[in-house]
């Protein structure tokens, strides 16, 4: 992903409703830090327009048991490497405090052309 603005965050919604909270550990190449959010934004996961041209962040979200009847936990791994002085790698834990099965995922930002999104389904036995 890449943003057409300087915004390196994105909002994440399931079934049209924002996630409720997230905790993350972030490394910038020299130090690691941890933070908490109580809203539906994930920060530092998108290459902004100020990043080196033609660089896009890689972002994976994993949602196990997405159709179950408990609140939905998920994890996110992301990197914003762009061959410049500032880049981040993030490991994020998130939760959506809703017991409904997830049937819609919305990722919002001023997303730049050539950003790609692929959804996979994985079945158990």
């Amino acid at each position, binding site marked *: 992903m890449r943003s057409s603005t300087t915004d390196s965050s994105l909002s994440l919604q399931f079934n049209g409703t924002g996630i409720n*909270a*997230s*905790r*993350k*550990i*972030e490394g910038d190449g020299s130090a*690691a*830090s*941890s*933070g*908490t959010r109580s809203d539906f934004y994930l920060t530092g996961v998108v290459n902004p327009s100020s990043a080196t041209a033609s660089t896009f962040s890689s972002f994976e979200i*994993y949602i*196990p*048991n997405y159709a*179950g009847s*408990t*609140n939905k*936990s*998920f*994890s996110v*791994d992301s990197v914003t490497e762009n061959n410049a002085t500032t880049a981040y790698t993030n*490991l*994020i*834990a*998130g*939760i959506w*405090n809703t017991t409904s099965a997830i049937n819609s995922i919305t990722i919002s930002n001023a997303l730049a052309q050539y950003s790609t999104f692929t959804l996979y389904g*994985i*079945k*158990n*036995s």
Partner: protein
Amino acid sequence: MPSTYTPIATTTLGSNAATVTFSSISGTYTDLRLVINYGTVSADQVLKLKLNSDTGTNYSNTIVYGNGSTAGSSRSSSVAFGYVSLGVGTGTNAYASITTLDFMNYSNSTTYKTTLARTGNTDTGTTKGTEANVILWRSTSAINDISFSCTSGNILAGSTFTLYGVKSA
């Protein structure tokens, strides 16, 4: 698109349990992936891993974690189990813990085995958050048995464990 994940077995706990085990795992895949959505009866538990029922001090762990305010790293060597997650347990969201584990080249009989564990937990509690763990098992045996348990107490009823086999092209 060809299927890359082959489901091997799923366990959904019908009642609280001290141990979850996958045994007699076939060696026909390239890698294994295990996906867990779980809680524990007691708060702030370490989820532990044993391979092939090995209770010897043959495991080493290197961990990076963030609990929402502090980032840290820890390491242990020559211990009797792998650390899957440092901080799981029951809170506002009983099943808030999720973990994926990757066992690469698990069936070779030449090298020691390395496992990557990735856990997320946004439940209440200071030890919970996000973490990535590397577990080394100093054995050249093919992995054919994987078991999980907590530091103390049981894994919560309703927790789900799914084992997949992943084949190379």
